């Protein structure tokens, strides 16, 4: 089982928003939902490798900033053209005000 990595402080992300988190040579997107839960996915859109953290979060959807590909960031499910490949998701927990991601 891989370790939990600290991504950021819980307060660093606004509700219904997203933040980019780079670790080693990998990049992730960390989300805070409108109901104050945290989620993590791969950082790049599966369509053209654009950083999703520049996109817009509405409810449980992240929209790619470039071509409006949509994903449910809680499940990683692609939600229609131009994206057809799902986004990988990662377990997240909040501990002592820190957002931790298990990037495995």
């Amino acid at each position, binding site marked *: 089982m891989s370790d939990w990595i600290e991504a950021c402080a819980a307060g660093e992300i606004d509700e219904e928003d997203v933040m980019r988190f780079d670790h080693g040579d990998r990049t992730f997107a960390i989300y805070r939902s409108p109901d104050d839960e945290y989620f993590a996915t791969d950082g790049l859109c599966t369509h053209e490798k654009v950083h999703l953290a520049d996109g*817009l979060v509405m409810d449980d959807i992240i929209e790619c900033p470039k071509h*409006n590909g949509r994903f449910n960031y809680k499940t990683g499910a692609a939600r229609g*053209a131009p994206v057809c490949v799902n986004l990988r998701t990662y377990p997240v927990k909040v501990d002592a005000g820190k957002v931790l991601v298990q990037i495995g």
Partner: protein
Amino acid sequence: MARGMVIIGAGECGGRAALALRDLGYDGPVTLVGDEPHLPYERPPLSKDAMSSDAPEIKAIASDELLAQRSIRHIHSVQAVAIDREAHKVRLSDGSVLPYDKLLLATGSTPRKLPMPGLGPRCVYLRTFADALAIRAHLSAGNRVAIVGGGFIGLELAAAARKLGASVTVIEAQPRILMRGVPAEIAKIIHDTHVVEGVDIACGEGIASIADDGKEVRVTLAGGKEISADLAVIGIGAVPVTGLAAEAGLAIDNGIAVDAELRSSDPDIFAAGDCCSFPLAVYGGRRVRLEAWRNAQEQGALAAKNMLGAAEAHAAVPWFWSDQYGLSLQIAGLSDEGRITVRRDLGEGAFILFHLAEDGRLVAASGIGPGNAVARDIRLAEMLIGRRARPAPEALGSQAVKLKSLLAA
């Protein structure tokens, strides 16, 4: 037995429409007819990534496997030559005949030809993957490229050519680049960036003559200046492909004229994407024709729905983008609808111009900045435009006010 759905044009719009018919549960025959030899593919990269890559590749919308799996018959390298509306049949250039229940014309647009004598093999246009490959072969260090037309295709190509070390001259007859649809303040930033990157831009001067001996092109400007190039790429706009529709007697008005549901003057024939003009609901039904990737995609999907009887009106706000060097431009709405402009700075040189109508309604937003700096706010602006919102100008102009908070208002 169902005659099925026939789609003429296997680009972004036609390809999306075919997939959408299946997504919506339609189980009759779906036939997609395209005149290119390729799978349906994305055109936006042709003037961008495909140009900077050593071996440009097609970015297909659907693979052969996916088309087979979804029972979409793709007929390639063939043109539709006539529609028999009475019999509900389309005749193809290979002599075959396709019956249809509903027909979708997604014939796209084609580059506007430069109406001048003297053009030869070194004067080219960019529309297809084959065009892109031919142009790419000339973009190398030491080569000289003349680009006729300071629009998006030409400017994106100029950026790609500079990246590859070619010397580039852009010739624009209008007083500035990007006259159509881009505010002067933003066009100036793009202009200045090209100049910094080493592009020579000649604005406000027409072309007196062109001579092409098959090895070199000589462009002579009205003022006498002569530009010699190994290749001239002409990017002076596009015209809708309407021949098939016109011959079938369908109404044409700057494109195949369709209603809000993308239905042509024949109730069993729809048109979508670059080839059609349609009433844009967000501006009170103003008839427009859009040459944009996302519009092609959205209208393809909407046409599929309405071919199946949904009767849903087009409600989207126009949106497009352009990438040049590290800069990205995004525009939501049509800025010529605006009378008042409010600027919002986003930091790092990125900013958005909000265009408001006289009555305070937000009608468009134009943004530019490094990377995807403007994307999120342009998307929010697009939603505000779609809702016919009248946000306070001071709120739009203030970085302290989150645009998302205006959506709730």
